[in-house]
């Protein structure tokens, strides 16, 4: 299964809690203790109030499709039997400047349109110890 041939997540010291939450099938974002702004990706300082303190809080898990691509070229040998594959860029409902990448599950590219409501689901990568990825499913298909 070529999913296991993908580049592994490489957390840094700020993002490690986010990746650990994803392993638990939880979607979280940072909330600034200074100004309450929600923040993603993980960083150790708020670029609005410059507070160095934050709290991890659950995200709603829903968002809307901002952009997407379909990759046909084999850029990595490990993905040769997956092309063509979709990658979405999703704007979270929790905030206009919170965006996350991910694949599309439960539907094909034909359903895609700007603003399509989606919901986060979690994919445990087969054969990989503790690697889980966030994916997105059209919201009316989520059961």
């Amino acid at each position, binding site marked *: 299964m070529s999913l296991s041939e993908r580049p592994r997540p*490489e957390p840094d010291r700020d993002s490690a809690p986010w990746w650990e939450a994803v392993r638990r099938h939880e979607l979280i974002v940072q909330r600034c203790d200074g100004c309450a702004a929600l923040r993603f*990706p993980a960083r150790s300082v708020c670029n609005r109030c410059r507070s160095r303190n934050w709290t991890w809080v659950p995200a709603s898990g829903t968002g809307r499709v901002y*952009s997407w*691509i*379909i990759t*046909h070229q084999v850029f990595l040998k490990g993905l040769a039997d997956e092309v063509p594959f979709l990658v979405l*860029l999703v704007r979270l409902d929790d905030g206009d400047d919170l965006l*996350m*990448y991910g694949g599309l599950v439960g539907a094909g590219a034909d359903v895609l349109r700007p603003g399509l409501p989606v919901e986060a689901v979690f994919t445990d990568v087969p054969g990989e110890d503790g690697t889980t*990825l966030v994916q997105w499913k059209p919201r009316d298909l989520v059961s």
Partner: protein
Amino acid sequence: MSGFRDRTAIAGVGYTPFSANSGVSTLSLAVDAVLAALDDAGLTVDDVDALATHRVGDSTPPWVVAPALGVPEVTWYLDQFGGGSVSHAVLGQAAMAVASGVARTVVCYRAINARSEFRMGGTGRGPAPVFDAQYQAPYGHLAPPQQFAMAARAHMNAYGTTAEQLGAIAVTQRGNAVKNPRARKRDPITLDDYLASRWIAEPLRLLDCCLETDGACAVVITSADRAHDLRHDPVLISGAAWGGGDTFLSGAGSGPAGTDLTVTEAARLAPRLYAAAGVGPDDIDVAELYDCFTYSVLVQLEDYGFCAKGEGGPFAASGAIGPGGTLPVNTHGGFLSEGYVHGINHVAEAVAQLRGTAGDRQVAGACVALSTAQPGYVLAGTSALILRSDR
């Protein structure tokens, strides 16, 4: 804020051949290009006191090239980390070094085996660390065509930009390359050829993508006064600007452009650049716009003020960017058809246009040129120059 306007000049340009496999080291490429640029300027290695480049772990730095060439004494050098987005920052900083008196003769170079050794995005050797990568690479999303495709789709979603409009850029630039003996692709293409080319990362096709190229290019920067005594009419560096700060994801929370893929750092830089040179978009006679992909040209037409936001597609398809248009763009064929040497070959072409030596592709009466770097996707920031003939 005129800064060092017109106080420095480009006095020489040099190339190696462009190919898919140079068969030589990046050191060798760098040396050949530097020597060619010096020869073009009528200077020798003994005149050089500074070298400048940029790289992402894929090339040979000044502190190797200088001793390899036997440069007598290096008084200033720049070995900037970064890809295309800093390509023109290197030249701007070199001009600043000359204007300040720190250096007298700087040779700027970029030497890469971008096809046979290091392929951008880490699909050849290991990727350069980029803040956003950990959230993208696990999905197989890591190569520049994918990243620019995501932006192109966002532009299509927001403004109705079409494949035919991107194709107009590819077709126009190939037409220019037909007239450029140095270009790697010189067979004309049609819009149908473009539309029939295979998908790389939808919405980008093969003919939206630049040519990964082995090669080098260099330019000599010295004072305007001294350049007048050298072989060619000087091309003055009228304005230089660089800067930035956001990658796409790291821009989250920093303002409206932070997570809008349809606006680049060039939109913030352009007013500084024009002010530095004392000109505006209407004064630009020829524009060499960073074209890793067709889309990057389209968005820069907007962000450098040649048309309104969202109008880049119709502007590109109107004929305005072709020979005889109001703004001839990428007159050498650009990275799409001449070859991708990461930015500096745009500067070299601008110099040829301003010297009036561009042959069949000469823009009549070209006096002011804009040359730009990657507008700020993937790695933060961008950079650009405005050059002026002094004939």
